[in-house]
């Protein structure tokens, strides 16, 4: 068969396939956004498009209206989960987001369906680094109302949720694996817990002399620039401490620190290896839960 025609048919099929699980979400004035039927009765959309907690209306793929209830929000990942009665609407077929690479051809869908075509242009680009999985940067247009809609591979499988709400410059998608984790956590707890130390840090280069003296391999570490009173960090960290590792994992960047402070570490003792006054030492800390205010 003609190659271009085959590609054209594949793309149209992918839109049709993925479009069966796509809802329009009316949760802000004027401009509806898009949502994906992720698990039976649960629709995922972009948090920034859900301006109200009540009176949410969704439009099913067949055009029928259905009421939605907010299950929970994850502002950090710009995701919100809504509950709907829609047992006869298929759930999205999820693809393996770890198999997505730069250059893969993808589609972004809006309710309707409407579609936009392009490629994955970067994964985990500088501004798109995330504590629990790198975001996809997309070379395609997210048209008005596309936020919360599916990123679809050439086989019609959903590999992420698109949003223009995280970055002004970049069109981004949150990988499906991260979305699934978020959905599970919001359904279980109604909120996303984040581990917390209460420390402000900046990456610094470890001086060569210090590396030699202490026999360190790593070139970068975090310097403590702020310790919040009464926080878990106040137990053992001081401003000026150089944090090399937590529980044996080297830390060279504040994003890595946040990545290590996952919810499952809350309440657990961890060992920080720090340099203080030219001496390496180990400090015991208990991971707390990040207060709602500072999320």
């Amino acid at each position: 068969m003609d190659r271009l025609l085959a590609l054209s048919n594949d793309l149209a099929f992918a839109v049709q396939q993925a479009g069966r699980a796509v809802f329009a979400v009316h949760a802000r004035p004027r401009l509806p956004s898009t949502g994906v039927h992720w698990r039976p009765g649960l629709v995922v959309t972009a948090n920034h498009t859900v301006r109200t907690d009540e009176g949410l209306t969704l439009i099913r793929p067949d055009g029928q209206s259905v009421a939605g209830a907010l299950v929970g929000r994850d502002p950090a990942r710009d995701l919100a989960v809504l509950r709907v009665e829609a047992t006869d609407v298929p759930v999205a077929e999820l693809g393996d987001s770890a198999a997505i690479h730069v250059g893969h051809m993808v589609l972004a869908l809006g309710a309707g369906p409407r579609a936009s075509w392009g490629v994955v242009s970067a994964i985990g680009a500088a501004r798109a680094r995330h504590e629990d999985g790198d975001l996809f940067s997309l070379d395609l247009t997210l048209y008005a109302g596309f936020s919360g809609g599916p990123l679809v591979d050439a086989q019609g499988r959903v590999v992420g949720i698109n949003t223009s709400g995280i970055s002004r410059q970049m069109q981004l998608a949150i990988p499906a694996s991260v979305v699934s984790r978020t959905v599970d956590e919001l359904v279980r707890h109604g909120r996303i817990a984040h581990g917390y130390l209460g420390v402000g840090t900046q990456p610094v280069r470890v001086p060569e002399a210090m590396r030699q003296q202490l026999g360190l391999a790593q070139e970068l570490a975090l310097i403590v620039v702020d310790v919040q009173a009464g926080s878990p960090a106040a137990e053992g960290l001081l401003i000026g401490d150089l944090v090399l590792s937590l529980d044996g994992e080297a830390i060279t960047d504040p994003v890595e620190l946040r990545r290590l402070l996952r919810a499952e570490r809350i309440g657990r003792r961890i060992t920080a290896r720090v340099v203080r006054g030219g001496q390496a030492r180990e400090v015991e800390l208990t991971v707390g839960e990040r207060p709602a205010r500072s999320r």
Partner: protein
Amino acid sequence: MDLVALAAALRRVTVELTDTERAFGSGVVWDPDRVVTNAHVAAARPHVRVRRADGTSLDGSVLARDREADLALLHVPGLGLPAAAVGPADELRVGSLLVAVGHPFGVRGALTAGIVHAVGKIGRSERSWIIGDLRLGPGNSGGPLADALGRVVGINAMIVGGLALAIPASEVTRFVRAAG
């Protein structure tokens, strides 16, 4: 057909419309001595210069113009180009490949590729358009929008919110037939 062959075929049936000073749009060879373009491209001119892909130019006159439909038909004696293959726009589905050729920003014979963004009406308009997720610029107006087989399915007419709007070929056929 690959995209290179498709582009070459589409360029052969795409002309550039100019007056004595500048280029102002594109046109599609509809039959051997007639060219279709947008009414807003032909504007109120009775005559235009028609530049073929090989660089040679001929004089053309405006046979018919429908501002409502935004279509115009030009008569170009001696044009001697094969007519564009025309395809049905109603076979397009959301996601189907689209290819446009035109002269955006004075770049002659520029090719852009995309997909069908949506089908049906747009906003409150009663008209149906081919709505493309495809990059167009000023100078694409009046030029061809083709499917994956290189068949002209529409005439590019507008850019709205970054989307390409084209007049379906069926409407163009009706207009040309009515113009005689």
